[in-house]
């Protein structure tokens, strides 16, 4: 009788083990073709996955933009046109542009993290809702909220960066206009920059 009770306990523990173990593990992705999921659940997952893909694409675009901005700055440094006092203004524009692109990249990266956190949360919520797995949602929700806050903060940093670019552009174009006939020097290297 004791052994029988023991075996029952063992069997019960084994049955409970997956549930207990999954609470603290990383969230397992769910497949869109999982037959256990109804259509609306799959739609939600698909939307969250799409969001992630879009965010990844945007980050790639942003990194490309940073690289291009770095290249433009490097080319300007390597072959600066003879613009006299106007040259620093042009350099300032490129630097501010680079800063803006970096800020945009940071925002894209933060947005990607947000999308990832949301996707994980979506997986966990769906698994829980349809009795597939058990997760502790609170940490995931907090993580998603934190990622959203971070993304918003990164986004908020864009406007001042853009404002600085516009400021630099205004200064540059004023200086350009003051060049008068000497503006040909700007054009000489315009196509290679």
């Amino acid at each position, binding site marked *: 009788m004791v052994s029988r009770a023991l075996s029952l306990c063992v069997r019960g523990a084994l049955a409970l083990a997956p549930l207990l173990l999954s609470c603290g593990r990383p969230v397992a992705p769910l497949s869109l073709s999982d037959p256990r999921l109804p259509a609306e659940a799959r739609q939600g997952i698909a939307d969250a996955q799409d969001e992630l893909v879009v965010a990844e694409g945007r980050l790639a675009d942003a990194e490309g933009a940073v690289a291009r901005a770095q290249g433009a700055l490097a080319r300007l440094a390597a072959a600066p046109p003879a613009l006299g006092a106007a040259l620093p203004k042009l350099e300032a524009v490129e630097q501010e542009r680079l800063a803006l692109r970096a800020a945009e990249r940071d925002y894209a990266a933060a947005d990607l993290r947000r999308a990832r956190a949301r996707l994980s949360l979506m997986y966990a919520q769906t698994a829980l809702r349809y009795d597939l797995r058990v997760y502790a949602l609170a940490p995931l929700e907090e993580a*998603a909220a934190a990622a959203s806050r971070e993304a918003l903060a990164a986004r908020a940093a864009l406007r001042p960066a853009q404002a600085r670019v516009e400021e630099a552009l205004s200064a540059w174009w004023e200086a350009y*206009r003051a060049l008068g006939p000497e503006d040909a020097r700007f054009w000489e290297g315009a196509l290679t920059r």
Partner: protein
Amino acid sequence: MSTPRPPRRAARALACSLSLSCSVALSLALSGCGARGADALDPPLADTLKQRITKARNAIEETRRAIARAQGTPYLAELKVRLGELFSDEARAHYQVARAREGVSDRPLHAPQVKTLKRKSIEAYLLALRDHPDSPLRARALFNMGQEHRELGEYDEMRAAFERLAREAPDDPLTSEALLVLGGDAFDRGRLEEAAALLERVVAGPPHRVKGSAHYKLAWVRVNQDRCDAALVSFEEAARVTGAWLEGPGREDARAGRYAELDVRRLALTDMAFCYGKERPEEGAVEHLRALSHDRPTFVAALERLSRRYGVLERLKGVRDTSRALLDVAPGGDRRLEDAQALHGALKQLKDYSAVGADVERLCASLRRAATRPGLDDAARAQLVSEHERYARDLAVSALAALPAAPAAPAAPAAPAAPAPALLEVARAHEAYLNTFKPGGFEGEGRLDLLSNLVEVYARLGMDFEAGRRAFERSLEAQDAGERRDDSYEAVTRFQAALEGGARGAADRVVARAALRRAAAELLRGALSPEQRPRVRFAIAQSLYSEGLLEEAAELLTAVALSHPGTEQGDAAARLALDAHQQRGDLQGLAAAGERLARLGVSEALRPRLNAVVAAARQQQVDDLALEAAGLDGGDPTEELLGFAQSNANTPLGERALLNAFVAARGEADLPGMRRVADLIAAQYPRSEQLVGVWSSLARAAAAQVDLDGALAAFERAAERAPAQALALRAAAAELLAKAGDEEGALSALRPLLTPEVAGAAEGRAALGLYAALATRARPAESAWADLAPFRESAPPELSVALAYVQVLRGQRDEAESLAQVAVSVEALPAELKAMGLYAFAEVYGANLREFKPASDVDELAEWVSLLELAEQSYLKVARLGDPRWGAAALSRLAALSRDAGALMASFAAPPALAAPLKARAEALGRQAAQALKTCEELAWRRGLFTPPVRECLKGAPMASAELAREPLAPRAGRAGAEVGAADRALVARNPQDFKAVARLGAALLAANDPHLARLALAQGLQGGGPELANLYGVSCARVGDWSGALEGFGKAALGGLEAGVVNAQKALRQLGLSAAAERAPKEWPVSIQGGELW
């Protein structure tokens, strides 16, 4: 033609040589008997040919023996004829030996055996003819004999034999051959008519393998007779008939290569050139020859001959056409240069450039074939290239020169312009030249000129891309720096036009942009004229724009706009720069760029448009900002917009941003946010036209969130801001006050606003209606009359019904009846006022009935009954409206009326006949009174309505007078701050059906000791909020002295089965002196839900 016949002198020489060789041979044979002498022939060929001789001799010997044995047999004739043929075969073999030994030369052959054997052959034939005159082989014998004579040069004998054949066997196939020989013989002797007659006999005959030859020979007869037309027909027939024979009956012979000499097709077509060039038109000549030719070599040979003939005759069109055909189909060779030369000459003389493109292509293709022949030395190749280049270039340039000149300005309708097909041909010619004579290909000294020409031609055709491409090409090849720059500029302008024109493939656009920028870069390195500079710069910038490099394009376009203000390019650049920002969705950049351009300088004509674009962008920026923020997780549109407004303080944009922020906050039901933004707008934009709307919107939002003080303050601020709207705004505030229970306060607020003038307007009417309703509810009749009477003149319906009620209370029934007509005639009255008006009507009838004491007269009784029924129906009409106050009052008053009328009726001294009916009617009235009272009571138990009339009914007695009891509420003492239940206020504002939030808010306000606000808040959830909420409502009403409300709340809660509802209702009923109702309550409202808030 026939085999050349040896002259007689040559025959004698032959005889001599034969004798000599016989002697030599004999001496050699005698001297070297048994010894094998050296032979002049190569051993293998000599052996083969000698073997043929041996074979022939053996055959002859055997045939002789056979003849000897065959006497009298039917085949004897054949053997004899065969013998003759064998002699001929041996003669042929000896001839071949002699030919092989001496080679091909003009010297007569030394072969005496030949003649001997031929003589023997002739003798054999003669013998056969003599011995067998009727043999069917006669024709063969005669023909062979004639051939032998012919080969011996014995032409008279030949003619005799053939003529005999023709005479004796006219239908024999060999006769045709004989006639052919005779015809040729006659031709050779110059006897043309005779030749023609003979040949015509052949051509007229049945199909025969020599018929084509006969036609051919006849054609030559005709040529010599100077009858070219007939000759042409014969030549054509020669080709056709021969072809038909070789492809039909003679197919096997053709395959075996037999009778090759009979194939006169090529000869016919080549020989007909002489007459064709003279007699036939040039048009269609090439096609005619092509149709007659059975293969390409024949066609080419015929073309060559005809082409030369045309050249001799100077028939230039023919030269042109045949030269073209030769260049197309003939194999490469030296003669092609002649053809090229001929074509060039003909085209130049004819000035025919209609197909110059194809012609130059033809010349170039011919050159490629000719110049790549193996074995061609460098000098010859160089000459070929040089000649072809000269011809091709000359044709292309001449064709261009032959075109009408391009108009200097856009063509006037009368100015002739070169048609597009002609221009296209010229372009094609130039293209062919340039694609052939180019670096890496053949040398062409005219390349630069033709490139210039081609640019011009493409420009005239409007083919800017092609023009640009060639101009760019020229810029790379030109040696002169000035020319390079001119070409580069031309390339830039052309490519720019091509890109603007659109409708090119993606690859062409890539090429155009790259070439444009490269050419432009070249130009930028040098000096540009003032006209060129803006164009080139704009072209560069525009190319980036068209490629989608919008950021780069915007930079350069801005540079163009600032460097060249007021020019066509400068203005266009400014517009495009802004458009580049627009396409990127960079509204901030667009607005900043627009403002910058306006500040730093654009043309005055452009400035208004620029400003409009900037303004639109700024506005859109504000809208997009809110939109974007609303879509973000945790995004706060209000804060975003406030930040934007701060960045654009004291600008219309900043104002717009604040307004949008206000709207965003309103959307979120963020009342503190709305207040904050409203204060900002008022502070920063005190003259804003939107402020009135902001305050009134804030007031309504505050009212929805039960922020009474906030709402009243906002209404007041709005009213101060807009005196024109003050009446409506303050009326709204007064209504709010009344809802909060401060009816006196509402009346005091409204009274100063109402003047007789105002009362006539729509807004004044609404305010007056509110005032009238409040006055009748809150004040005694005389006071209400004093309030309302000044507006009697032209009173609106809302006031009329109130005055009607007041006059009823004041006993002024006539005026009351007159005023109450409105309730009947005007449909669009609020339900409560309509009920009030109808109630006044009913009271008038009731009062009239009470005053009318009928005598025992039947008529008066009847009239009294009519009045009674009128009054009953009037009350019932009010009751049917369902208004909780007036309906209950009507029932109560109906009960009173019925009771009194019943009692009166019972006391009537009616005539005996009416006694019983009257008695019955009186009893019915008594029952009606009880029923009406009961119905009134049931309003409490079934609907939870405990208005004063209902409470009177619950006491068991109807209302003694028409006046409804007033229920002034206790003054508001506690004032819960806006922070009490703030979250639930927002929830309720967003969703009034969120009953949980309503309940929480009500409980919070009660806990904050502001039952007035709690009552307002909980009233929203009374319908559908459930028994707990209704109970809370009851509690809040009880605390402010609104007994109707309290009992309504408790009653609904009790109806829902809530225990606290029943208990609270009992308590309230007892407090109101309705103990019996209190006792009845648990029976009417069984409890099913335990608990609830107890009052």
